[in-house]
Structures are given as C-alpha cells and as structure tokens.
C-alpha cells in the first residue's frame, strides 16, 4: 500500500470523515476559548465545570434519552448551577469561592455517577467520561457547527471590551464596560465549548482541548490576537492529528488528542524563542545596550531638571 493511500484510508469511512470534521471544529473553538480561560486564570474553574456536566448529562439521559440537544441542555444547566451556586455559597458563608466550587463540583460528579444508573436507555459511563468520537452523529456535528459559529462570532465581536476586562477588570469598569455581563457570557460559552467536545474526548479530558493549545500559544507570542487564533489553529490541527494517530496506533482518540497537544505544549515550554526554558539559558536575552543608553539619558535628565538635588 502506498503512503498516500494509507493517509487517505481513514477518509473512506463516513464515520471517520464525520469524526475528523467534528474534531477540527471543536479543536478550533476550544483553542480559541482557551485564551480567555488562561488569561482569566480560570483553568481549574473550567476543570470544575467540565466535571459538573455529568449530572446534567445523566438527567438528560433519563428523561430525553441520548439526543445530542438534550445532553447539551442538561450539561449546560448543570454546569451553570455549579458555577452560580459556588458564587452564591461563597458570598453567603465563610467559604471562599474556590472551596465552594470545588465542593459543589465533586458532589455534582458523584450525583452524576449515581444518576446514570437510572437512565432508561443503556448508557455506558465510560462513553460520558472518555467520549466516543467514532460515534459522532449528525446531531453532534450540528452542535459542533453551532457552538463554533456562536462562540467565535461572539468573542470576535466583543474582543475589545473582553481584552480590557481580562487585562484589568477595574480599568474596564471605569471605561464604562459591563464587566459582569461579559464575564457571565464568557462562562456560558466556556460551558458550551466543553459540552461540544464531550463526544470527542469526554468529561474527563475536555479540559485538555480548552487549556493545552492556548497555553502553548501563550508561551509563543506577546500578541493577544495571535494567541487567540494561534491557539485555535493549533487546537484544530492537533485534534485532527490526534484522531489520525489514534486510527493508526489503535489507541482511544481522547488520550491521543490530548497527548499530541501535550507534545506541542512541551515543545513551547522548552523551545519557545521568547519564554522557552532551554533557550533562556542558551541565548542571553537582555537589553544591555539599550539600558546603558537609558542610564546615560537618566544621568543627563537629572542634571538638567534637578540642579539642586543632593
């Protein structure tokens, strides 16, 4: 068999084409969203949200069966309840918000595992936990299209106020930006991104799509928009690449995708030209000439402006 035909072999299966398309879309969306999660320092909050999807999925499976729209709605509601409940609990007690949210999400996760046993339809817990990319149906694909369109268009439209909010919420608020609304909207989109990636990687690994590509981009660039689009493209490519790898190596797709993303993150961590660990030792990156010039400038400056200084 030639190399080319080996490469195109997966494309001859309809389920595989659907899975690849789905991976490309959710990889892109989550990679894009990841920038906002990382710059808000909410990576672990997102992890809590991904776990709290489970009871929602279980309730949806009990009442609505395995329809993708029902699962989407269930997951969305459960995650919102945990996020809002955590804030409410923190506001009304001595518990700090990260304790409150951690407590609620782990309780929600346990409830989810119990509830799934009561589903009428036969539900495989591992399917929810680790995903089942080859079972992507048309409904799942529509959700992936919808989530991608909604997320990217909203975030691009509100990119400017969001940038300011992420950078410094106080400055944003004094500039007349409705910080609370933006943050709530962002939370909804993050949950949507997580739910959309369930079919591919499941509850437990969905955080990987959200965090790893954007973290990689963060180590590579100093530009907000390059981090956004770079994270999205990297997420898309590595999700597709991971699925191909899983096809050839016969490994489950979720871990394959996450590990491929991890390789990119590791690469950036060690070899990023700006913030890489290795190159920091090899190339002494500083501004000696400039700082010397500045120092001379300051000397002159002091003599001109502060003649009476001691």
């Amino acid at each position, binding site marked *: 068999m030639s190399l080319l035909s080996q490469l195109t072999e997966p494309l001859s299966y309809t389920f595989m084409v659907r899975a690849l398309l789905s991976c490309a879309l959710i990889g892109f969306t989550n990679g894009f969203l990841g920038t906002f999660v990382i*710059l808000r320092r909410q990576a672990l909050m997102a992890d809590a949200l991904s776990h709290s999807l489970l009871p929602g999925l279980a309730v949806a499976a009990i009442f609505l069966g395995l329809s993708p729209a029902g699962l989407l709605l269930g997951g969305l509601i459960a995650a919102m309840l945990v996020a809002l409940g955590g804030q409410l609990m923190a506001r009304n007690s001595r518990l700090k918000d990260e304790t409150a949210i951690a407590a609620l999400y782990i309780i929600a996760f346990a409830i989810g595992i119990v509830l799934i046993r009561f589903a009428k339809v036969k539900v495989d817990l591992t399917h929810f936990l680790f995903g089942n990319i080859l079972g992507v149906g048309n409904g799942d694909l529509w959700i992936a299209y919808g989530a991608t369109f909604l997320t990217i268009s909203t975030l691009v*439209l*509100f990119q*400017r*106020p969001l*940038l*300011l909010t*992420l*950078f*410094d919420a*106080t*400055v944003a*608020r*004094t*500039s*007349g930006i409705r910080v609370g609304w933006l943050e709530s909207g962002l939370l909804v989109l993050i949950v949507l991104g997580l739910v959309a990636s369930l079919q591919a990687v499941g509850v437990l690994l969905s955080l990987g799509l959200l965090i790893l590509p954007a973290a990689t981009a*963060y180590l590579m*660039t*100093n*530009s*907000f928009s*390059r*981090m956004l689009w770079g994270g999205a493209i990297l997420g898309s490519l590595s999700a597709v690449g991971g699925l191909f790898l899983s096809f050839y190596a016969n490994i489950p797709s979720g871990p394959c995708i996450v590990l491929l993303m991890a390789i990119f993150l590791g690469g950036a961590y060690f070899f990023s030209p700006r913030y890489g660990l290795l190159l920091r030792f090899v190339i002494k990156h500083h*501004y000696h000439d400039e700082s010397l010039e500045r120092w001379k400038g*300051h000397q002159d*400056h*002091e003599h001109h*402006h*502060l003649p009476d200084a001691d």
Partner: protein
Amino acid sequence: MNHLSKNSDSLLTLRDLTVSYHRVPAIHHVSLNLAAGHCVGIFGPNGAGKSTLLKAIAGLLHPETGKILISGNDVSGAAPLIAYLPQRESIDWDFPITVAGLVETGRYHQVGLCGSFSRRDTVAVEDALALFNLTSLAHRQINELSGGQQQRAFLARAWAQEADLYLLDEPFTGLDRTSCSALSSALGTLRDCGKLLLVSHHNIAEAEAIFDTAILLNGELIAYGSTAEVLSPRHLECAYGTAIYSGKQTGKKP
C-alpha cells in the same frame, strides 16, 4: 487662588459625598470643587479614605449620599473623560500586550466594538507614545519596562483616551528616585495641558515639588488648598495626630 474655584468653572465637584463599606463610612460628607489644570495630591493616614475617594470618583464604588459631578453633569456617562490608573500590584504584567497595544485600548471608546482605527486614532496613539517618551519602547511587552515606564504607559493610555480627569492611586510607590522625577515631570506636563490630576500619595516631604494643590483626608475632609498651606503642622496634627478626627473642619471652604 484659582484652584479653589467657584462651582461654575470647576471640572470636578463633590457635594456632601459619603462612601461606605458595609454601612461603615470610609469617607463622609466631603464637599470639594476642583478646576482643570491642577495636580492635586490626596494625603492622609492609612485608612483615611484616599483610595476610596478615587474609586468613588472613578465609579467603582457607589456613594451612599451626595453627588459627584463632572463639569456640572452626573458622573455616570462621563466614563471616557475619566482615566483611572490602578495600583501596580493589581495588574497582570505578563499579559500578552505591547505598550502600543495598551495605549490603543485607550481609543476603544472612540472606535467602538468593531470600527477600524482611523487616521485620527492612529495619530492619537502615536502622540501619546511620543509625549511620554515611549515611542522607542512601543513594541515591548509591558513586563519588559521599568516601573516608571509602566506608569507612563498607563498615562499614555489615558492621554490617547482624551481623558480630562486623571485618577492615580499611589503611583509613586516602589519607584526609584529617577523614575519618581520622570513621573512627576510627566504629571506636570499633563497639568500644563489643562488636565486635572488627583493623586493619592503618602510622602509628605516631597509633596510641594509635585503638587500645586493638596487634599488632606481622615475620613472627613480636614483641609484643602495650596499644598504648602494644607500640609502645615497644624493640619497634619489634625489628620495624623489622633486616630479619628472629630473637631471642627478647618481650611478654606468653597
């Protein structure tokens, strides 16, 4: 002196302003008129309400009683006229943004959600960078600047925003002497351009070189007027000598 201006030509008017945290007033019954073209230092012991006053004017805290007026109009809706410079610790200096990018955010109000930068916006950004000697550093990430340069980058952002009122919370904290003098000359430039600057500050020794006007706070307004007059030993004893000053208010009244 003209900094104790009449109501009509004042840029910032506080009328009987009280701001509370959980029903405990941090500042109470403060009334002031301040005209454009002044650099005003806010002094007082820890917990005197310096930051509270700035945050209330910036719209971050809601007054319990009283009013804040900008050019005679209510403060809500005057957002682009006010530039608030946060304390340095509150900022994520690793944020992926360059100096030029930061200054550009000052134009967001003018260009709107999706509008592209016009020639006028670009010129405003370039002017702001040039005014604060940041042109050569425009493409640096903000963490690659010294403390003084970081302060100037935020001032440049406010300039690009075309703000009239600058609120600075302890901008001199942690700066070395060189950076301090650069910052105070930058503040002087802004004052000479007709801006009103309100700066919370704790170093009384060097106050007169930086500020032409001073406000002395300790929960309530103890004095305001020219810096030399306000920071006289008599007033300072009122502000710093006792924990809570409850005597008669001194200093000039509007």
